Every structure is written in structure tokens, then in C-alpha cells.
């Protein structure tokens, strides 16, 4: 991965105010709305905060695919092939940029959550949760890069939206997973966003099967990294 290129990409990202406001602002706003409806001091507020933090992380990383698709459409990736940068390296830069955006969005949600909780906030747990959230977003950053390289540029946005909503549902972001139709939870347990949410809830005292969470997330990361490598390697030809 090329550090200078990645840093320039991050700078470009930070300048894109509209994307920042939408990606980070929407989950933060949703959190405030949900908190006004269901928030209390028995843990519902922290739970809602984590759910919206997860949503922010998912939205930021998966939407990176749209950026890749646009750059492919604009001929930028073809231009980059006239440089020593490898497509795989480009994909990793894009994933890092996606993770930076995810971190910013998650942090904003948590900052709003902190304000909502006032003095009762458990700061170390929040920091741990945010870190786990960021770590668990890695497979989705790879998924975003993969979505951007596959298929046409025009269909990248709707495809990203479908994947985002699917991942959000399976992660129990909008509706707690145990309230979904029976059987869905056992399906969701094979999907990384389920464990992303579960891990991020854990620092606040929710029980979680850490081993299974780690294995599932690691397995998805490896498989997606393999697919990214294959798909972007093919772009060489």
C-alpha cells in the first residue's frame, strides 16, 4: 500500500463535507430520535448508541464501494494502471479510507451518545466498544472495495444500499435480532455484522461468545481479502 497516496485520499475524503455529514450525521440523528423514543438510564441508551455506531460503521465502509465504482467509471483506475501502483494496493488504500470514515462516523455517534448520557457514561467501556466496532468493520471495508470493482458503476449505489440494509438487519441494528422472526438469528450468527454488534455491546455488560465472534469476523476478513486480491488481481489483465 502506498502511504502518500492513502493520505491524499484521506484528505480528499475529509474535504467531501456532504459525504461526511450524511455518513456520520444520519446515524447520529437516528440515535437522537430513537433515544428520545426509547432511551432510559437502564442501558437502553448505550445499547441504542452502539447500534447506531454499528450502522455508521457499516454505512461508511460499504459506501466506499460507490467511490471505487465512480473512480473506475471516470477512468481514474485505468489511469492508475499507468503507474507503479497495483490494483490491490489501490483496493487497500480505499479500504483504509473507508475505515477512517467509519471511525469518524462511529466516534460522532458515540460523542452524541456521551452527551445524551451525561455524567453516567462509562468512558472506558465506550472507548473499548468503539475500538471493537472499528476492528469489526474491517471485513465491511473489504466488502465495500469488492462491491466497487464488480459490476457496472451505475448499479454500485443500489447494490451497496441492499448490502448495507441486509448487513444492518442481520446485525440487529434496526430491530434487536432476538425480536426478528425465529430462525433468522441462527442465520445471522454466520454473518459478521451480527458479531460486530455483539462485540461492541460487550463492554457494557452484554454476554458475548468472544471466540465465535473472533472466528466469524476473522474468517470473513480472510475470505473477503482473498476475493479482493483475486478481483483486483484480475484487473491487471
Amino acid at each position: 500500500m502506498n502511504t502518500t497516496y492513502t493520505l491524499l485520499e484521506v484528505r480528499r475524503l475529509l474535504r467531501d463535507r456532504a459525504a461526511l455529514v450524511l455518513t456520520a450525521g444520519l446515524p447520529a440523528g437516528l440515535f437522537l430520535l430513537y433515544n428520545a423514543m426509547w432511551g432510559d438510564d437502564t442501558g437502553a441508551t448505550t445499547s441504542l448508541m452502539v447500534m447506531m455506531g454499528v450502522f455508521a460503521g457499516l454505512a461508511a465502509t460499504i459506501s466506499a464501494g460507490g467511490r471505487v465504482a465512480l473512480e473506475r467509471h471516470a477512468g481514474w483506475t485505468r489511469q492508475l494502471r499507468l503507474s507503479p501502483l497495483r490494483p490491490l494496493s489501490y483496493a487497500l488504500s480505499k479500504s483504509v479510507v473507508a475505515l477512517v470514515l467509519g471511525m469518524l462516523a462511529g466516534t460522532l455517534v458515540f460523542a452524541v451518545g456521551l452527551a445524551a448520557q451525561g455524567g453516567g457514561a462509562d468512558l472506558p467501556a465506550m472507548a473499548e466498544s468503539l475500538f471493537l466496532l472499528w476492528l469489526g468493520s474491517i471485513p465491511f471495508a473489504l466488502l465495500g472495495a469488492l462491491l466497487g470493482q464488480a459490476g457496472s458503476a451505475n448499479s454500485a449505489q443500489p447494490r451497496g444500499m441492499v448490502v448495507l440494509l441486509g448487513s444492518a438487519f442481520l446485525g440487529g441494528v434496526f430491530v434487536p435480532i432476538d425480536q426478528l422472526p425465529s430462525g433468522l438469528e441462527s442465520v445471522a450468527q454466520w454473518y459478521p455484522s451480527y458479531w460486530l454488534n455483539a462485540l461492541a455491546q460487550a463492554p457494557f455488560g452484554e454476554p458475548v461468545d468472544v471466540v465465535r465472534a473472533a472466528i466469524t469476523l476473522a474468517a470473513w476478513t480472510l475470505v473477503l481479502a482473498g476475493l479482493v486480491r483475486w478481483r483486483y488481481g484480475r484487473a491487471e489483465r
Partner: protein
Amino acid sequence: MTERTLAPHAVRLTGLRKSYGPLTAVDGVDLEVAPGEIVALLGPNGAGKSTVVDLVLGLSRPDAGTVAVFGRSPRDAVDAGLVGAMLQDGAMLEDATVAELVALFAAVHRHPLAVAEVLQRAGLADLAGRRATELSGGQTQRVRFALALVPDPDLVVLDEPTVAMDVATRREFWAAMRRFVAAGRTVLFATHYLDEADGFADRVVLLRDGRVVADGTPRHVKSIVAVRTVRATVPDLDEATLHALFGNDAVTVDGADVRIRTADGDGVLRALLARSPEAHDIEVTGADLEEAFLSITEGSAR
């Protein structure tokens, strides 16, 4: 510009073939370009120019044959910063400024020129802060030119560089290009503008149906094709007789005025004078590149 240019060939293509499905885009091309040469790849749309350019740049792989750029694979040559290219399509990110685009591209090259220098050489110093999508066609083309300059290349490959430009901008572009190549750089450019090939290249490679059909100086290409136009006023032969004598495609009849395009001007002249005692105002002219090009590309239809 270093000792790297001492490789015997800037570009060497041997037995190059490339098909896209049933369409054969490049059908056995052999081509050697010496360092410092300015070579035009000339041909109508669909002749295989862009495919050859893609193969030289390593953007696609040949089905058969080899590509060497300064004795290396295209990928190695690109990695070493030996090649700069202006592609026909894109490379404009909506949210990036001109300076950022150049900086992004410079960031991934190993030995790039300074961004400010590139902007200045491409005539973009005043537009550095402009969003890439707010540029005119000619300005956009200058950005593509700037991206080609970034690695300080020994070989510049241009795919239809002036296609979206008006005449004045085109002239300006070639003037800038001339300054750039003065230091002995090699240029390979695809074009279907004959005046560009004639005016800028010192060698023209004519492509038709994925094959090289003529190769030489603009003058040499004309002499190979040897197209002459015989013009005369012929009151005593009718159109059918003229067509029968000289072929349907080559003869244009307008009343008594006749135009015959031929590779054998002397033969046509003899035949015409033998059959038409009243023929007068006879004029035989050599072909310009345009006519050479027409006769050779029409040949493919038969």
C-alpha cells in the same frame, strides 16, 4: 531522460494479435520504433489503433506475439516511469482539483517530476485549484497531458489526443508537444487526422483492419500508395465506357468532366488519350495523404 533510452527499440511489437470475441482488432502487427522517433498510427475508426496503444501500455494482453518497451515488458517500463500516456477516456475525478489529480498520480510514481513543474509545463499553473470537472475540453486534455508528464517519461503514448479540440487548441497542443519532445523523447500517437500525422510525425504507420498496410515517412507512404488523380474534360466518351475502362470506384463523371483515381497515372493517361482524341484540359496530380489514405482504406471494402 537518461541512459535508459539506450535500449535499441523504444517500442518493439512482434506478431501481435488481439481479438475481442469474434472481432479481430489487431491481426499480426510487427512494429519497431527507435528512441527519439515520432510515429503516427494512422487509420480509420476500428483499424485497431486504440488496441495497439492499450497493448503497448500493458492495459491489455496480446493473444499472441510480444510487446517490448525499451526492452522490457510494458508493466516493467511503466513501473520504471519510462512511459507516459494520454488516454482517450476519463481520469477526471469529480471532487478533485487539477493539482490534486496530479499530486495523486505523482504519489504513486517512484520518481515523479514536482507537481508544480508538471502544472507549469502543461500550462495548468493558473488552473491548479480548479475542480477537474469545471474545465473546458481543451483544458481537460491539458490535465491528461499533465498526467502523462508526471513520470518524466522517455516514451509518450497518445491515443487520439486532439479529438475533442477545436483547430486553435489543437495547434496549441501540438506546439506544447513539440517543446516537450525536443529533448529527444519518443512519441507514438494514434490519430485519424491526416494533417496531424503529416505535420507532427516523422514516420506514419497506416493501419487497416488490424494490420500495418504502409509504414514510412509521410512522403514514403504516399509513394508506396502512388495514388494519382487524372482530371480531364472528355466530351467523346460516355460514362459507361469510362467505367468499363477504369473501374466503377475510381471514376467520377460530372458531365464532360472526369476524375479518375489510380495507382498507375501513366497507364490511365495513355489509355485515355488512345480512346478519346477530344480529351482536353488534362491534369495529373499526386495524392496528398488524405487521398492515399482513402484509396488504401477503400481497398478493404473489396
